[in-house]
């Protein structure tokens, strides 16, 4: 099982342990980059290129001007390979076939979570490795695409611009698209789902029929009370660390599954669009992040204008 964020990795691991009383023999859970490094690259060419780990920094500018067959484009002077270039490294050094064989040898099924975040060479590699190889199941939510695994050059640029085209890029490689099995949310209530469908124009339904509390808070006193509620997580568009409370950023909360009570904090622009019923006009990435934030709520969801929290800003 391959997933992208550390949050997801922990979630997935915990869920599997809860379900099976431990990690079943033969099951491996990897974060995407550890999969690329520990499962694919290191066993094949660890000694050959003297690999000594992953460098998660953005590669320095000079490396972009190097030829693509220059090792320094991919590997830093300490032998660490740039995370964002592992996929292109595998493709450019002709290792795809070897990795495909390795996957076929050890895996009956490959599960990939949050597949909507695969971009650039990572997207190409994912399809190259799985198409026509071992069974593979990719799970994702196109509208939760809030960042890219890596962006390097123009490969697969515009992949996420259009949902239909996006689906087609899988179909072209022989994948079936299943939009029904996971259409309904297990986490979110009917109320939350309706809000998302109506206001953000993202089609989502719930497995639950119960209603829940969803409130646009337009009262300073109430807003302050929520800010101080320890069990309510405050989700900010960005810079959540400026506030001294249980908090996170919209996008980063993806994959987190244990918030009952969520307060989504709206900046001026978003607040205005909400009041006008035009949230769907947000730039796609922002809309997706807001969507992620709203759908964290298991029960209560508060929408609070950021201006009420100004005084708490550090």
């Amino acid at each position, binding site marked *: 099982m391959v997933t992208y964020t550390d949050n997801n990795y922990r979630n997935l691991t915990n869920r599997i342990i809860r379900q099976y009383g431990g990690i079943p023999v033969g099951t491996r859970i990897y974060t995407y980059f550890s999969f690329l490094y520990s499962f694919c690259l290191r066993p*094949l*060419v*660890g000694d050959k290129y003297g690999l000594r780990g992953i460098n998660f920094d953005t590669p320095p500018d000079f490396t972009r001007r190097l030829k693509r067959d220059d090792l320094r484009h991919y590997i830093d002077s300490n032998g660490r390979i740039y995370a964002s270039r592992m996929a292109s490294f595998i493709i450019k050094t002709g290792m795809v076939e070897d990795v495909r064989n390795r996957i076929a040898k*050890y895996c009956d099924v490959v599960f990939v979570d949050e597949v909507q975040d695969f971009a650039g060479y990572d997207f190409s590699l994912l399809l190259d490795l799985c198409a026509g190889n071992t069974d593979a199941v990719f799970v994702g939510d196109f509208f939760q695409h809030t960042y890219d695994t890596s962006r390097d050059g123009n490969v697969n640029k515009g992949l996420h611009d259009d949902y239909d085209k996006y689906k087609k890029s899988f179909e072209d490689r022989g994948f079936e698209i299943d939009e029904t099995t996971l259409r309904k949310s297990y986490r979110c209530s009917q109320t939350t789902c309706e809000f998302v469908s109506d206001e953000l124009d993202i089609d989502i339904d719930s497995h639950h029929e119960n209603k829940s509390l969803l409130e646009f808070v337009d009262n300073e006193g109430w807003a302050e009370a929520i800010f101080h509620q320890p069990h309510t997580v405050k989700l900010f568009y960005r810079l959540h660390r400026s506030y001294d409370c249980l908090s996170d950023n919209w996008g980063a909360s993806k994959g987190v599954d244990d918030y009952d009570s969520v307060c989504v904090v709206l900046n001026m622009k978003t607040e205005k669009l909400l009041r006008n019923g035009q949230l769907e006009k947000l730039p796609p990435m922002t809309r997706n992040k807001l969507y992620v934030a709203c759908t964290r709520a298991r029960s209560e969801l508060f929408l609070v204008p950021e201006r009420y929290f100004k005084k708490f800003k550090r």
Partner: protein
Amino acid sequence: MAKVITKVKLRNFKRFQEFELHLQPERNLLLGDNESGKSSILQAIDLVLAGSRSKVETLGIESLFNVDAVLEFLAGAREYGNLPELKVELYLNEQHNPDLNGNNNLDGTMCDGLALICSPMEEYSEEIAAILKDEDVSFPFEYYSIKFRTFAGEPYGGPRKYLRHLLLDSTQINNEYATREYVKSVYRTNSEDGERHKHQNEYRKHKAKFRDAVLSDVNAKLDTYQFSIATSKKSNLESDLTITEDDISIDNKGRGKQCFIKTEFALQKKKSTHPLDVLLLEEPENHLSHTSMKRLVTTIAHAEEQQMVVTTHNSLISTRLDLRNAVLLNSTSTVSAALSDLSPETADFFMKAPDNNVLEFVLSGRVILVEGDAEYILMQALFKQLVGTEIDTTDIHVISVGGTSFKRYLEVARLLGVRTAVLRDNDGDFEKNCQKAFESYLSDSVRVFSETDNDIRTFEISIYQNNAALCDEMFSGGRIRLPPQEYMLSNKTTVALRLLEEKAENLVVPGYIGEAITWINE
């Protein structure tokens, strides 16, 4: 499916600069002289499987590093990049585990395996380079790191074991540490992880109970400071465990008995879910009487569950465990020779034949094979007569074999390239017995020597013919009624002994024996 080591590869480990050894899935015999590196190979396997850095540190990298590699480096240009590395690699059969699989090994082949690597720490490259510029530099062992990793490049160590193994070193039978390590590993292979934690926990509780119930008398008389039972890394369940037979701890048994029990105990069929995968036996013949050894060998021969690597310089052990499983290590070279190509008949012959000298043969550089006791007895004298030195001071061995088993030995000689001179009686038909019979065995290193005259059928006749006057004088008269030559033929050993004692210096060496000695001594 059994987990087995298919190959061991060493670089700069002890006496081996480059060495490769293929292992059989079941039994493996490492034969060799002292200093041939048998024990080093077991140690190398043990270190990699144990995955313990402290074990390597205790031994010291310096003591494990090949001396020649160090000297060569120091004598050379002393570049940082040329610093030698120590590597021990174990190639495994298919383990169905991606963490073990990769091509990070000396062969560069895709397979499962484990490795121990001692190499200079790159983060200190500048310091090392500076040290190396020093005139009277000593080798920078202190800057070497000890790493355990799989062929996938995955580091490992400590309790995460890929193969379960046990090293039984009977040369260290009275060593307290070795005994404790042995008991510990046997305990571990016979118990489950959860079970062990429970045992340890219960043991601690019992100590507390003892303190409360028994020591309370003394403690009642004391105030602040009280007596208690120690529980620590040095005193815990595993450190206090021992193995008993009829309530007697094995520590209190004789060395031979200890060896026996330990081996047998390690070999017994386990009900445990984690049987041993690899058993390493160092010279099991130590401290054992001939009878115990025979029993032990039977036990070893019938153990099927695990891969075994046995070092020995005992003929009985090596033949009974099937010579085809044997690998020969030579103290003068670092090349191993396998006997796996030996024909089943020959292996079977040595397994069933009476106790024999095959190991002596295998370990010799040069051999004279003779047909009987008389030749064997007189060979020393004839050799000295001709060469002037005692045969025992050379690396030439004289081995007496029964008439029909020549070919068995020659098959071994051919495989191992042992230079062998066969002294054969023509028994009245030189062409048949000495030429045709050996045709297919002759080579640059194997030659047959005999009388060509069919009338000189045997060794005794040849001795008589060459020393007629001397023999007539010694073997006639008194109670001897037969003519001298007849007497010699019917009292071979007695005659040989008397000749050796009384006339060793006057004997004329028969021509074919002279040729043989000259050839073997070339």
